[in-house]
């Protein structure tokens, strides 16, 4: 499988990266090189092999349903590029 300019533009959109046309054009051969290289996995017989997501069988621990943290609004907002009235501030979303 290989990608063209349109597909790379689409991936950039999914990834929310506003790339210039030059950046997209440069990425097409780079991504194709990498994709071509990883495609060697197709030759591995994986019939009947379960996909492995975690090396340590994860058993999520339970804990008592009590508050362990919180009440730190100002600390949480301290690094925000924009904050107002105790909230993160973003460009207008709804007209």
């Amino acid at each position: 499988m290989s990608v063209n300019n349109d597909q790379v533009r689409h991936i950039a959109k999914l990834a929310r990266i506003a790339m210039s046309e030059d950046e997209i054009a440069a990425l097409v051969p780079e991504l194709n090189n990498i994709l071509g290289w990883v495609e060697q996995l197709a030759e591995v017989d994986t019939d009947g092999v379960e996909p492995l997501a975690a090396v340590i069988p994860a058993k999520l621990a339970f804990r008592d349903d009590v508050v362990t943290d919180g009440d730190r609004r100002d600390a949480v907002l301290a690094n925000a590029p924009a904050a107002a009235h105790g909230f993160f501030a973003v460009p207008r979303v709804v007209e």
Partner: protein
Amino acid sequence: MTDLTSLGVAQLRDGFRGGDMSAREIADAFNASVAAGRGLNAFVTETPENALAAADRADRDRASGALKPLSGIPLGIKDLFATEGVRATAGSRILGDFAPPYESTVTAKLFAAGAGMLGKLNMDEFAMGSSNETSAFGAVVSPWRRSDGGNMSLTPGGSSGGSAAAVAARLAPGVTGTDTGGSIRQPAAFTGISGIKPTYGRCSRWGVVAFASSLDQAGPLARDVRDCAILLEAMSGYDPKDSTSLDAPVPAWEQGLSSDLKGKRVGVPREYRIDGVPAEIDAMWERGVQWLRDAGAEIVEISLPHTKYALPTYYIIAPAEASSNLARYDGVRYGARVAAEGGLAEMYGATRDAGFGAEVKRRIMIGTYVLSAGFYDAYFTKAQRVRALIVRDFARAFEACDVILTPTAPSAAFGIGEKTDDPIAMYLNDVFAVPASLAGLPAMSVPGGVDGQGLPLGLQIIGRAMDEQGVLNAGLAIEERSGFTTRPEAWW
């Protein structure tokens, strides 16, 4: 008095306890060394006042008889760790002046054990790189130079390049690093020091900026095996704030150190002999085999049949996880924001385009692609299946041996700029390191000698899950026999 920067963690600890020097004197010496080493670009942020404050506490604790395990020891901290009130950059522009309002579990443990912080260490952006050249703060320069008389700047490796350079150049007696696909072991090998990635889950990932969460592990880099054992002991332990943290006691690794390998079997995997690797690497590997035999171990040939597929597997899984993890950098909650014409989506796009460097974008794009509708099974699920086979390879090999010995990297350090044009050539640097990462196994690099140009080469020891002790002990056996004392000349 001895130059205190010539001493390692254990020597400083014992000297401080014995009254040979004060913690203040140690901190002063390393703060001065950090300032004198700025030409290496190893630190992104220097925190001499933090090191001094910790030293003064250590001096008071010694006076009152309340010594802690790392009292008097100043450390460098990779800039991937959240440090309360001290900027954490992850080597990226996108975090701006982010000053975490909390402390990572690993650094909190180190500081609670009495250690101080010399500063935050430079690294590849979001730990994505093998040469430190992807850092938004510029490449770290290795203290090592080739013996050809040229002054070409060499890479210290990556992504923990600032960490490795700081230890090799004696700017810090020990440091933290992180390892996703070799980022502790390869820089340790390139700079003639030791470094260990523990079993996945030993060190809490809480407060460590996430790259690929199923692979990321913290660990120490230091001058020798004992120092690594001391630091790893302080960094490890169960943490309910990390859902993949291992709920197991931390062994007394330093106390358990023994270079007597009688009754141990060392596996030598035939698939790690690959074309194009310099003969010097094979020769060093063979010397390593002899050293471990001399230490009493039995040598057995083993097979890890899926080794050649580890790297392409990694370059699907790691970018996929990264593309998901790095979605949080949206210019809303922290970091730099770039305003754009339009609305929220345009702000996201402009912020991420300006904030991420080329390699990070490349990996986010690969990751987004392999996770996208229509390609998920062909790439991502396939890679997860091959990963299962790689894990199975190791499980079978460990029926016949106790530890595995391999080279750490397929070459010595290369020049800055020599491999930046070819991403795949750069990725191949981690060909020996990545399989143990995919299997979550403890693995360390120790110096194995120098090449014809006088540059360090590393030997890697891979152990069973939870058997850091076996890895450290084999590392110690090599260290005692290699006679590796070569140091870079202080030209900086």
